[in-house]
């Protein structure tokens, strides 16, 4: 029997597109000072959130995002049937420890910074497949937990280069339902791991741009949609450098998504915040989607949104062993039908 809902090589077309019924975004102080500060549900005043460690703070932020996204519909965590989440830390501890307290069935995901799209994609498949009626897809990142795992101690006096990015302190949570009202996830494209041999850990955008371009190309090829079908195509965290590279790759592939193409890493901060190339981290795409972007979809400012969250799948170990940085990108189409 041929796959009924698969299109082309990598894309899925949902028969009963799941509804995005509510969402929540929680961010740190720096993100709150950025251009979208007022559009987030909650801006924390510090990075510790009254916890003992940054890791515990990240867990708390994710947990609160999930609880808030459900409470907007008057629901409790127990009303959700499945919790899909992932983060950047080893063994995805932020998500697992958040899940420990939320106490609903949990599937942990690792897609690095592509997790927002990955969790929405998996959640949409679960609902369209008829297995669940209400799923929560969430992700988080914390500047200081990521720095200490992937880079150097916080107080160490190192000089950043202009292509480096700032890991966002942010969490985003989206509630998907089989019934309800609002925007729906109509189709999705599962990305391939693309590695163009980049080894510069201070240029993640450069490592991930080929994956983003590949997934976007495959999305249009598989679905037959034109690039102007979407009001906005937004990548996850390529930053200014990665976005410029993606532009070049689009032209090479014969795609012209501009001017309706942007990047969450470029949008999240303004240039004066000392973030060099822009934002990164799971929370970058997470908070921009579960905040400003979904609000704009709700208002009708954006009717067709393609979120292409991007991830760099290396670890400090692979970097030290001289491995190049593999990139991935998953696309999720969110539409007002």
């Amino acid at each position, binding site marked *: 029997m041929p796959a009924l809902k698969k299109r082309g090589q990598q894309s899925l077309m949902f028969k009963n597109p799941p509804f995005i019924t509510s969402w929540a975004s929680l961010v740190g102080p720096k993100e709150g000072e950025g251009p979208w500060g007022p559009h987030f549900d909650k801006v924390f005043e510090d990075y510790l959130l009254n916890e003992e460690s940054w890791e515990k703070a990240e867990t708390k932020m994710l947990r609160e995002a999930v609880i808030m996204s459900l409470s907007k519909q008057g629901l409790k965590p127990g009303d959700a049937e499945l919790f899909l989440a992932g983060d950047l830390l080893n063994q995805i501890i932020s998500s697992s420890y958040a899940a420990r307290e939320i106490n609903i069935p949990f599937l942990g995901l690792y897609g690095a910074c592509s997790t927002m799209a990955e969790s929405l994609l998996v959640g949409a498949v679960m609902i369209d497949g008829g297995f669940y009626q209400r799923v929560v897809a969430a992700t988080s990142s914390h500047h200081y937990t990521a720095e200490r795992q992937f880079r150097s101690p916080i107080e*160490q*006096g190192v*000089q950043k280069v202009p292509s480096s990015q700032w890991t966002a302190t942010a969490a985003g949570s989206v509630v998907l339902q089989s019934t309800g009202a609002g925007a729906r996830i109509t189709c999705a494209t599962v990305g391939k791991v693309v590695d163009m041999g980049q080894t510069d850990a201070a240029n993640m955008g450069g490592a991930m741009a080929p994956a983003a371009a590949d997934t976007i190309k495959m999305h249009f090829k598989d679905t037959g949609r034109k690039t102007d079908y979407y009001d906005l195509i937004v990548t996850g965290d390529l930053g200014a*450098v990665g976005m410029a*590279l993606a532009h*070049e790759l689009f032209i090479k592939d014969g795609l012209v998504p501009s001017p309706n193409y942007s990047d969450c890493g470029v949008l999240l901060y303004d240039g004066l915040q000392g973030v060099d190339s822009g934002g990164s981290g799971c929370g970058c795409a997470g908070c921009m989607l579960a905040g400003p972007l979904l609000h704009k979809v709700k208002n009708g400012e954006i009717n067709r949104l393609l979120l292409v969250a991007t991830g760099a799948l290396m670890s400090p170990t692979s970097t030290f062993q001289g491995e190049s940085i593999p990139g991935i990108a998953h696309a999720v189409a969110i539409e007002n039908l």
Partner: protein
Amino acid sequence: MSMDEKLKTTQQEEYHHLVNRIKPKPPVLQNCIWAFVVGGLICVVGQLILNYLLGMGINKQDAGSLDAIIMVFLGALFTGLGIYDDLGQKAGAGSIVPITGFANVIVASAMEFKKEGYIFGVGAKIFSIAGPTLVFGFVASVAIGLIKLWLIQ
């Protein structure tokens, strides 16, 4: 090498050129000036302390050791106050190369891993950045000691 591998290598090389073309270059001259000024100022502070110690009548060798101890303390203090990392962002090598930079990487590591406890956190990780400097510093000192022993004596 198969055709596919060749194609892949060519594509990767092409992309590498594209990245180099688009990637913004660090402001090298500006960074050098900053490094020169800040590194120089740190050395001036060290010299002032040394002169003061010598003025107190301490002999030259002891004054040198005391000076290094005081500079390491200052590096550690400004790391703890959260100032040294901001300085390092501007000054680069200017604040890494002097002995204060050595204090910075050790204290920064100690602060970072305190949450994992004193044994497996601070104790195990305190030299995670400074470790290579120590290891190869010791290796170099042993080598120089042996050269002195065999060749000069």
